[in-house]
């Protein structure tokens, strides 16, 4: 591939794993080099046979005529298919191996979910169909809503938010609506350091002023500092539980009681609900609103694999303000979605809408399939296994990696390590890059910020002990090399299709167009 990469921004693969072996093609065995699609294309080549346009342009559309032909790469259909398939082989996916991203659960997407979601009665419905023609789909939304309310011990659920942060916004808008309904103009939201980064962003977006609450030495919310700050200007606190340090906020009930006593409300970031399903009901802890990431806790596809979905469970105080359409099972057991035409009588305090339609229907179907295929006992075991796996990783590595909160007791679903103890000049980034050579996607690094050089590992319940042992052996080896100051590790990855890229240059001078 000497003809490509004229700009020189991609290191040649021969500098990677070639170990001296150079092929005429640039490919190595079945590991394939791939040029940019613009470099592959030839002018005049086209995958489809399109008729020349006939006749004049419709009157009024002349101004939309292009001055020149679009600069599209000319490829045949098989060349195009191969291009993207070859690129996909350089990618890493949950179907290829573990994805130990902390705070960003990536777990197996059961194939049964996919099968059910593809049933024509679910896959082929249109959001503008009258409700009476899609009774089954409405039943799925309401059944899932029932499960979410039961599992969380809450009063109601807003099903339409499209992802976790969208759910946070929905929850805060419910809180704002409830406060305004009682004529309360509170303007501050307290966010502890141990919360997800999206929490302060959501609060600011919803028009609130954000104030930080410090963490204690053991990685949890400082209850005394929080209580001291409460007052008539505090609308709510946003707490992530279990938090980003992988710890359960054991003072949650006391926090909620103190906030309620001061007239505020409690938002819980439920992104990590997968650690406590069947063990703790957030409703019992005094929480007023909590989003649930269906793509984390209930195994729907995540990241590049599919859209998120973030239903928000609500306390009795907030339920009347839930957005439309509002999923409801009537006293007669009849499932329906309350829309604007009925809201005046049946759900009059809704703050508005979060979404044009009903939410992520495809994710609802998958999540309900997951729930029904596990059953209540199975869901409890999911959480137990997720926590067991994380603690197995924590205890298997704490002799070679510093675990800042390891002494305080078990972790929840995430094992957190710091860079303390690595040789001078060796960093968390070196270990993360080394994991690529080992054939694993790196864990979350440099987050949470409260831990220096953080490495946050969430193994999830779907990894077997054998799989975890392989991961642990690799991470142990890398930790030992970083402690010993093995200079070769600074060059990692050396076995990947690309070497360590210049992330700084990529951020400072991003090349976003072709040709550059």
């Amino acid at each position, binding site marked *: 591939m000497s003809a490509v990469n004229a700009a020189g921004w991609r290191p040649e693969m021969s500098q990677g794993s070639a170990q001296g072996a150079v092929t005429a093609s640039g490919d190595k065995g079945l590991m394939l080099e791939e040029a940019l699609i613009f470099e592959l294309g030839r002018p005049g080549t086209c995958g489809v046979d399109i008729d020349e346009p006939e006749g004049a342009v419709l009157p009024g559309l002349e101004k939309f005529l292009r001055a020149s032909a679009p600069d599209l790469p000319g490829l045949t259909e098989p060349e195009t298919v191969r291009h993207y398939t070859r690129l996909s082989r350089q990618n890493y996916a949950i179907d290829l191996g573990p994805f130990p991203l902390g705070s960003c659960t990536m777990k197996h997407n059961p194939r049964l979910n996919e099968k059910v979601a593809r049933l024509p009665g679910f896959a082929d419905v249109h959001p503008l169909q009258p409700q009476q023609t899609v009774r089954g789909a409405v039943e799925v939304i309401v059944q899932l809503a029932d499960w979410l309310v039961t599992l969380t011990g809450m009063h109601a659920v807003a099903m339409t938010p499209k992802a976790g942060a969208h759910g946070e916004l929905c929850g805060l808008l419910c809180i704002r609506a409830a406060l305004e309904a009682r004529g309360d103009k509170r303007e501050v939201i307290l966010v502890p350091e141990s919360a997800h980064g999206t929490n302060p962003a959501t609060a600011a977006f919803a028009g609130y002023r954000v104030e930080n609450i410090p963490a204690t030495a053991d990685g949890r919310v400082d209850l005394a500092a929080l209580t001291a700050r409460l007052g008539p200007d505090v609308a709510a606190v946003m707490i992530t539980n279990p938090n980003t340090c992988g710890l359960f906020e054991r003072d949650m009930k006391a926090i909620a009681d103190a906030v309620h006593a001061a007239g505020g409300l409690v938002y819980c970031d439920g992104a990590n609900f997968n650690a406590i399903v069947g063990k703790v009901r957030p409703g019992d802890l005094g929480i007023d609103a909590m989003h649930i990431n269906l793509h984390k806790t209930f195994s729907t596809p995540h990241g590049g694999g599919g859209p998120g979905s973030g239903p928000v469970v609500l306390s009795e105080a907030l339920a009347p303000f839930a957005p439309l359409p509002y999923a409801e099972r009537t006293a007669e057991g009849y499932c329906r979605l309350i829309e604007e035409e009925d809201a005046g009588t049946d759900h009059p305090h809704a703050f508005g809408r979060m979404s044009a339609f009903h939410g992520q229907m495809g994710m609802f179907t998958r999540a309900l399939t997951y729930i029904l295929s596990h059953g209540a006992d199975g869901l409890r075991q999911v959480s137990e296994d997720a926590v067991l796996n994380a603690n197995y990783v924590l205890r298997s590595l704490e002799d070679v990696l510093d675990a800042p909160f390891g002494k305080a007791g078990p972790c929840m679903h995430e094992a957190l390590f710091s860079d303390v103890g690595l040789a001078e000049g060796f960093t968390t980034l070196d270990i993360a890059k080394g994991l690529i050579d080992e054939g694993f996607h790196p864990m979350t690094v440099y987050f949470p910020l409260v831990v220096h050089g953080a490495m946050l590992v969430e193994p999830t319940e779907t990894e077997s002990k054998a799989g975890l042992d392989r991961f642990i052996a690799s991470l142990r080896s890398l930790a030992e090399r970083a402690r010993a100051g093995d200079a070769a590790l600074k060059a990692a990855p050396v076995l990947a299709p690309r070497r360590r890229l210049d992330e700084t240059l990529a951020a*400072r001078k991003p090349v976003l167009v072709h040709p550059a």
Partner: protein
Amino acid sequence: MTTYYTEDHEWIAVEGDTGTVGITNYAQGQLGDITYVELPAAGATVAKGDAPCVVDSVKAASDVYTPVSGEVAEVNEALADAPELVNTEAESGGWLFRVKLADPAELGALMDKAAYDAFVESL
């Protein structure tokens, strides 16, 4: 010219009624390579403890708090094209913004060089 330091790792070099603010060499080392600096608008009014400036690095986006109250007199335009100055010359050419001091008494709460060095040593 006297230079003062904060526990949030900002420095402020005061000359007359104007203070030049930046982040310390220790801070840039912790942040790693700086990729972008979001500067305040000249003329903006800032209060001590406000975060009128954000420094993005390959690791994180970090607020920079102003050690004093006043009006932003000038910002370091050179950082738009060369954010790496914050890495290479954190305590000189990589300055962020200048503040016309509203209350010079606020400087009394800040650390001098010796106290800051001892503070960093204790971290």
